[in-house]
């Protein structure tokens, strides 16, 4: 494929499901659910994109269509230059998929055996497999786990195994669906470091579906927000923060308890003894506010809080 061709192209994709509902003793009504409703976006090669959305927004449906295991009702998809549903098997050799709550490892066998089987499945030459395996074993710290049956691994250990399994055939594109679900802080951190490494060093395109905004904040420069099967936001994390209606907060500690400060361009939202909270639109600079405070009051300490990404996204969902 051409180097400038996007890794993923999605053009006006729709996907509907028929849901049968019980409506009385024997009667059943059919209802059409639009899981994906006119979705369009591109992902360039080497990008690391976060796909966000509330439950039922159509994220998983989208990922399933991108892997070719679900056919769109209408619209066009291309992944690494292939039509996913028509070329599912060929595509499978070039992409890696990790579903956080699904397992692709052999439950009763040690990790080592699963990896050996995957080499056969993906027809990876022995030397390339050995090199990739050595690298992932080191990066994911799997060395001591290789001979333990998967069923005896902890969730965090298994997850690292799943990710190695999805990457052993050195895919150009990696989908991760909720990769850090249920993991502790340390495991999450390690996994994020690893994902950043393969994105930067191997140039692997990564699409991350998650509810954990920490993943997105630490990993993705670009965010896609999906709600009701439509794209409601596409841009950088900064742009998401600066969306209309979001606010930044200046927290100021004064020398003594005092009445509400008065500063142009900001509004006091809360007072607690000597500490006061000022809110300003997220598009505005905090510098003039800080300067005024320092000039007119006896400031002991001062901090600026960016809008919590959770709040921004929650607001987007409500709007959508």
């Amino acid at each position, binding site marked *: 494929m051409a180097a400038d061709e996007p890794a993923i192209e999605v053009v006006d994709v729709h996907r509907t*499901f028929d849901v049968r509902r019980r409506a009385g003793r024997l009667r059943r009504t059919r209802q059409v659910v639009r899981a994906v409703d006119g979705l369009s976006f591109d992902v360039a090669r080497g990008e690391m994109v976060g796909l966000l959305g509330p439950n039922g927004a159509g994220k*998983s449906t989208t990922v*399933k269509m991108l*892997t*070719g*295991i*679900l*056919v769109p009702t209408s619209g066009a998809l291309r992944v690494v230059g292939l039509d996913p549903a028509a070329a*599912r*098997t*060929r595509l*499978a*050799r*070039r*992409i890696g*998929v990790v*579903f956080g*709550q*699904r*397992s*692709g490892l*052999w439950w*009763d*066998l040690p990790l080592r*055996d699963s990896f*050996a*089987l995957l080499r*056969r*499945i*993906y*027809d990876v030459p022995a030397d390339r497999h050995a090199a990739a395996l050595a690298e992932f074993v080191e990066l994911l710290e799997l060395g001591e786990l290789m001979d333990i*049956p998967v069923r005896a691994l902890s969730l965090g250990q298994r997850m690292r195994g799943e990710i190695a399994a999805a990457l052993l055939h050195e895919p150009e594109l990696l989908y991760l*669906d909720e990769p850090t679900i249920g993991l502790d802080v340390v495991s999450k951190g390690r996994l994020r470091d690893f994902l950043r490494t393969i994105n930067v060093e191997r140039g692997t395109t990564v699409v991350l579906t998650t509810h954990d905004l920490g993943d997105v904040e630490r990993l993705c420069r670009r965010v896609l927000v999906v709600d009701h099967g439509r794209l409601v936001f596409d841009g950088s994390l900064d742009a998401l923060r600066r969306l209309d209606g979001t606010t930044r907060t200046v927290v100021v500690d004064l020398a003594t308890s005092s009445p509400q400060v008065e500063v142009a361009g900001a509004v006091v939202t809360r007072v607690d003894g000597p500490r006061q909270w000022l809110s300003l639109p997220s598009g505005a600079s905090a510098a003039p506010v800080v300067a005024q405070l320092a000039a007119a009051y006896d400031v002991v300490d001062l901090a600026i809080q960016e809008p919590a990404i959770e709040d921004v996204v929650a607001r987007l969902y409500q709007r959508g």
Partner: protein
Amino acid sequence: MKSRPGGGRLATYAAVASGGFRRYATYRLATAAGVFTNSVFGCIICFTYLALWQERPDIGGWDAQDAVTFVWIGQSLLMTVALFGGGFSDELADRIRTGDIAVDLGRPVDLQGWRYAEDLGRSAFHLLGRGVAPTLVGALLFSLAWPANPLTWLAFLGSVTLAVTVSFAIRYLIGLGAFWVLDVRGFVVVIGFVQLFCSGMVLPLVVFPAGLETALRLLPFAALIQVPAEVLLEKSTGWGLLAALGSQLGWAVVLLGAGRALTRHATRRLVVQGG
């Protein structure tokens, strides 16, 4: 990437089969317990059959030694052909129900071929691990009818492979059922009992009244126990042997074909549940 000629695929399936073998070989204590159970049940059934054959010698044209040998063949094949279900089909149904099947479909391998290879590996383990030892116990305690012609062993192995194939094809169809019904465990139990009776496992089909025997032989279940047992007992020889293996092959082709068609159909209208 171009798909490589047969050799590469075959190596893949061989690796999968070996994985299937090792999965079951891991559970040594369970295997030992199983061998014990098979041996005990084998003895109990032998005494029951001996009592029957004492009352009705030559029933169905078999003598008591044939009957006792049949018991141990049945015990050896019980797990090999997974008469009570189990093996991959529970797992397949489970993966369909939970949506894990999405991972399997996202692999560059054929779902049915993959599962078949794995099941062949499993059955090889069960034939060795659960078949040989109880049969040795049986041979120590009873007088068994071993084949006169050593080639019969070869024919038996072929017949067992076909029996496993038919059994696989049936279980694969049941497992796929999870695409349409949420819980296939009921099916598994019912088919288990049907197979227990119709395969000859409870009583060799030859002792049933002629009409019933003919009817049961027309079903695919006879291919699981009755047919391979008759091959080893040298009841099917010459053209009869070809007919016996042919009937197994016929069912294998028909049922595997049905599984393929159903897989295509399910994948086409796939709505992976959950997620």
